Each structure stands twice: as C-alpha cells, then as structure tokens.
C-alpha cells in the first residue's frame, strides 16, 4: 500500500466522522469544528488518491490550496454568525434544550 492511498483511506474515515459530527453534535462550535474535520478528509482524499502511484501531482495540490482558502472563508463566516447568534440570544445551539452538549 502506497503512502498516498493511506492518506486517502484516512481521509474517507475523517470525512465520515466529520459529516456525522456536523449532523449529530448540537453546539455550533462543535458543528463548525466537525465541518473542518470533514473538509480536511476530502482534501486528504483529493491529494492522496491522485498520488497513490507515488508520482506527485500538482493539479490536486493546487485544488486543495484553493479548497483550504474556501474553507477558511466559510469557517470565518460560520464563526461570525455563531458569535452574533450567541451575542443576541446567549445560546450556543440553534435548538433550545440542547445547550447541555
């Protein structure tokens, strides 16, 4: 098994973990972190799978750089919204009664 494939395998597990996290976790901060785990998983698959033969491929590397910047922008926006929501309502979750998480 090549290193690239190993990265890709770790990537799909991280993706599934993160995706389940975004849905199951209640606290907005945890959701946002889970989204980042999910995104990182997809990036690992993109880079790792393309390089599973051992030859470096600059195309997915550039795509992941683009993807990371998009993820930064999305995370900043999500954190800003979560902060504004907390400032307005004093809550860390969207649905009432789940604040214990």
């Amino acid at each position, binding site marked *: 098994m090549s290193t690239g494939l190993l990265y890709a395998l770790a990537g799909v597990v991280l993706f599934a973990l993160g*995706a389940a996290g975004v849905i199951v976790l209640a606290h907005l901060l945890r959701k946002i972190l889970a989204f980042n785990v999910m995104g990182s998983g997809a990036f690992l698959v993109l880079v790792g799978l393309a390089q599973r033969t051992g030859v470096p491929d600059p195309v997915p590397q550039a795509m992941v750089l683009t993807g990371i910047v998009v993820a930064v*922008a999305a995370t900043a926006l999500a954190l800003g919204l979560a902060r504004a929501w907390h400032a307005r309502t004093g809550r860390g979750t969207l649905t009432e009664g789940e604040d214990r998480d």
Partner: protein
Amino acid sequence: MTEAWLDPAAWLIVLPLLWAGLAFLAGPGRGARLAIVALALQLALALKLAADLTATGARVHAVGGWGAPLGIDLMIDGLSTVLLLLTQVVAVALAVYAQGYFADAHHRREATWFWPLAGFLLAAMNALFLSADLFNLYVTLELLGLAAVGLVAVGGGTAQLAAAMRYLLVSLTASGAYLLGVALVYGAYGTVSIATLGPLVAAQLPLAVWLAAGLMLVGLMAKTALFPFHFWLPPAHGSAPAPVSALLSALVVKASFYLVLRLWLGPFASLGSTAAGLAGALGAAAILWGSWQALRAQRLKQLVAWSTVAQLGYLFLIFPLLTADGLALQAGVLQTVAHGLAKAALFAAAGVLMLATGRDTVEGLAGVAGRVPLTLFAFGLAGITIMGLPPSAGFLAKWLLIDAALESGQWGWILVIIAGGLLAAGYIFRVLRQAFLLAPEESRFHPVPRRLEWMAFVLAAASVLLGLRGAELVALLGITP
C-alpha cells in the same frame, strides 16, 4: 462570431464580479444605480449569447487558452443559455425593485452591503451555468452558497441569524459531500473536465465512482431543498428581506438543480436509471408536503416559501420520465424558467403587501385589494403560472410533463401533478380571498413606491406570456454540442 475580447460568455461573469467589487469600494448602501446599469448590460450580453448560439451552435471558451483537461473550459449550449437568460431577466427586474424597497426608511439598514453581495451572487450563478469543470463548479457553488447566506443575514434580526446559520451548515455539508465526490472522480480518472469524463465513465465504472455520484447528487439535492432536505428553505426564504427572498427562491435553488441535471444527463448518465424512481418519489413528496404546508402557513412569506418547496418537486418528477424524445427535459427547463419568473413576482408582490400593511400575516391582508390593486393583480397572474393554468409557461411545463408520463405509461405521476395544481390553487386563492375582504376599522395602510408594484407586475406578466413563446425556448434548449 464575435471578436474574442467581446465574448459575451466571459463578460457575463467578469461584469458582475466587477460591479460587486466596485459597489463595495463605493461604500455602505451604495451601488444600486451601478448594479441596475450593469445588469441591463448583462441582459443584452445574454441575448447576444443566445443569438450567437442560434447562429453558430454550441461552443467552448477555454479559459487560459489551455483547454481541458489541463485548463478549465466554459461551455455555452442551449441549457446554459436558457438559465443565463432567466437569471439576467429576473435580476434586472429585482434590482430595480430592490432600489425602491431599500429606499424605505425601515429597510435602509438592510441595504448596507446588499449590492456587493448581490453582485457576487449573480457572478457565481453565471459562472456556475457556464463552467464545464467539476472542481471549478465546486468553487462557484461555495461562492453562491456563501453569498446567499450573507444575503439572508442582512436583515440582522434573530430569526434571520438562525435561518442563515442553518442554511450555512446545510450548504457547507452539502458542498463537502460534493467535494469528496470530485476527489473520488479525480482519483478514478485523473480529470475533472465534464466533457473528458463522459466517455471514460461510460467505459469503466468502479465502485468509487458510484459513491462519488451518490455524494455529489445528494449534496446538490440538499442545496436544492428537495424533500426531505427542505427544512432549511422556509425559514431562510421566509425571513429574508423581500428582494433577497425573491433572488433566492427564483434563482439560487435552480443553480444546484441545473447542476444535478448536467451531471445526470452528462457523465453520470449510465447510473441515472437506478436512482430515477427515487428522485421522482422525493419530488412527489415535496409537491404534496410543500403545498400542504403552504395551505396552513400563517405568514405570507412563509406561504410563498413553502410553495417553492412544492414547485421544486416538479423539477425532480422529470428524472423517471427522461427519454430520448426530450419531452421531460423540456418540461423541467420550462418549469425552472416559469417558476423563476413567477416566484420572483410572488415575493416581490408579498414585499409590497408587507410594506403596505406593515405586517407579514395572511390575516392582515384584509382590505389590501383596494390599496395596491396592481400588486394583487400581479400576485394573481403569477398564481396562474404556479397553479399551471393556460396560457402560462407553468401550464406548458406541466402539460409536457403529463405528456411524457403518458408516453412512458407511468400514470401515477399524473395524479401527483394534478393534485399539486389543485393544492396550489388552494393557497393562492387563500391569499386573494383575504385581500378582497373589507379592511377592519383600525387598519392603516402605508404608501408604496409605484416601481415596486410595476416590477412585480412585469415579472408576473412575463411568467404568463412566456407560455406563448415556449417553442422558441425549446428550440434554444435543443442546441447541444
């Protein structure tokens, strides 16, 4: 053929990016006039694109001059041109509407960064309709999603914040699923160019590509608010300022549907048949559930938003009916255009009614018929399209859909289409009936700028009159590479 530097396809993306940037530079609340002029120009560009397409056929604009698979291609064909035309028409009318709407003292604060956000939203849509590269499409999807979330949040209220947050989480998770699909496709074939992928997918279909197709399509369906992923739509579209609701409901959800259609007809054609029945069933459920919720909604904009959930269902009914004769595809695209125009008109009209009565309830509409008759007429006209009555474009779409169902012998869908039309009549007449009641003694009406009423009327009239010109749209749609 146009000279290279005048290529309307390129300018349809560059121009909105430019005015979005300049509107931000101009400062808070500025940019309305710039946007309207630029959007009129964009409409001219889209018409030029359609004329060129009819004259010389489908073509590719190879960004960077490299060509796929090394570079990114823009693809100009009938399907993309129809959606570009719809987008520019709706956008220019809504921009004129928004300028008047945000001039109202109560809504001025919402306009702080409305114009640059709207510019980026429209640039993202045009870029999405033209892109023929799966990864580039991911970037346009994110640009579109974040712009839409930003526009939902411009209201600044608690309800808007919650709606924006929920919308953002769905949007990000869905694009994450789409991105993993792109990663798997690149791993399997070594390219993300849609044209290059076609023959490769047809030749060899490993399990990873099945999973990729599933992830991408489910992600896009969530962004299109297909039942059961519809939960984010009514709060987001129902709580945003009226011009924003109109943009989101008329156009933004259509972008992800367009991409589903592109993938379904293009690289994933060989997998389509397995999931077609499921897509149709979810569409049917959306029609019934959305219409039922619209019938029960207390707030006017919630009613219109639930109607969007129902009308989006029709778009997914076409998948089990797609055949070589193209009837179902024509029905789907006509429904996209008809609903785009009619829903923009309904939200524009709802915005006028809210400004006039000062509240957002169906109950509060009593007596409004005498005050803003033109708006109510627009609401009724758009309602004709939503219900699918002749001669509207909505009628044509539903007629073609029934035709396609008859030809393939799938009778069940016809019952759903007819039931959906009856339910739509129910919620449209609920609003009209209330508006014609006598106003209670204590009710006060506020004057509304005339241009708001006119824009609602123009959009509604277009959605009805388009039914008479459906043949031209279908001819344009038929231009494929």
